[in-house]
């Protein structure tokens, strides 16, 4: 979407200047009727410019809506593929990311929860056998006990074999699950590009609106102040660039320091 300067057209300014000069001249020459006619001409000139800018704004909005495939503000998710609403699409993609990451996390935890008792029991059995082994070495073992030990050791070797196979399998699966990052990364890149496009379009719209405002003389400054106040106490979610901000802590240690410095 194209937009031009944020200040009125040079030819309009030139026209205004000429009118102003002529107006002064008429007034000095007591030509009040002609002066009045001139004032009306200036107003018409200004109005025309307003209408032109509003026309641009309307066209700009219309283009933006076409770009986003917004149908009067309501998106029908069941539209044919090529006409699918892009906002809806972005939303779906992000939900997909949530779903994918959740599944990967759950599966990884499943793998770990399966593996943990296996490795725990291997360790425990090894510890018990070690004690028995020491007894054997110090010749404290009876032949009967030795037979038991012998079988137990045999079993232990077998169990270790199968257990480590299972553990390795689970570890491999954990690696595979990390594949989510590739898929989510791709999806997120697309969403980023959509958001950038929307951002660009909004900036253009803002410029056009600014043009209209400057001609009509509206001052939008007051609106901004209250918006800032509200944002302060609201949550922002995980900090992405904590190091660059003053009002944010960067680690658990900083949290603890902050709290103890205030007496908590």
């Amino acid at each position, binding site marked *: 979407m194209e937009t031009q300067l944020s200040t009125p057209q040079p030819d309009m300014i030139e026209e205004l200047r000429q009118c102003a000069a002529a107006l002064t001249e008429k007034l000095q020459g007591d030509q009040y009727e002609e002066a009045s006619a001139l004032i009306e001409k200036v107003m018409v000139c200004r109005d025309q410019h307003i209408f032109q800018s509003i026309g641009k704004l309307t066209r700009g909005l219309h283009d933006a809506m076409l770009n986003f495939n917004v149908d009067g503000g309501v998106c029908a998710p069941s539209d044919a593929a090529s006409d699918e609403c892009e906002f809806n699409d972005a939303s779906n993609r992000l939900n997909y990311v949530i779903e994918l990451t959740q599944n990967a*996390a*759950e599966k990884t935890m499943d793998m770990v929860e399966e593996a943990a008792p296996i490795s725990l029991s291997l360790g425990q059995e090894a510890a018990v056998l070690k004690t028995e082994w020491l007894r054997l070495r110090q010749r404290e073992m009876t032949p009967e006990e030795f037979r038991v030990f012998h079988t137990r050791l045999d079993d232990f070797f077998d169990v270790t074999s199968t257990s480590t196979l299972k553990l390795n399998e689970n570890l491999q699966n954990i690696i595979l699950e990390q594949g989510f990052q590739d898929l989510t990364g791709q999806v997120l890149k697309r969403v980023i590009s959509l958001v950038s496009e929307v951002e660009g379009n909004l900036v253009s719209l803002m410029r056009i609106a600014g043009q209209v405002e400057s001609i009509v003389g509206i001052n939008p400054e007051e609106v901004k102040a209250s918006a800032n106040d509200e944002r302060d*106490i609201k*949550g*922002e979610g*995980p900090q992405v660039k904590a190091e660059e901000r003053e009002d944010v802590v960067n680690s*658990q240690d900083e*949290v603890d320091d*902050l709290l103890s410095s205030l007496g908590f």
Partner: protein
Amino acid sequence: MKILIVDDFSTMRRIIKNLLRDLGFTNTQEADDGLTALPMLKSGDFDFLVTDWNMPGMTGIELLKEVRADDRLASLPTLMVTAEAKKDQIVEAAQAGVNGYVVKPFTAQALKDKIEKIFDRV
């Protein structure tokens, strides 16, 4: 000790539940929002509350304030485990009476330290 874990992401609830289990706390229940957690707290007999901040229905800070305002629950030890790292918020939580504040991502050790600290004081 009966613990209530509150977080809108099931993955995080699972992680905290596992960590608590490793620390010996096996009696845990879960809620996915402040709104569902509050009635559970009021009618249950929980000894410890672990909650996130950002939740769609009722946030963790609102839940904490509700708990502190309730006669029966006012002294319930509460630990916040959250991604919120703004100083203003940490202070707000402390002033609202939170007993510990852990930022995500956290280590098992950090969680353990905070829990021990809370129950040493009580």
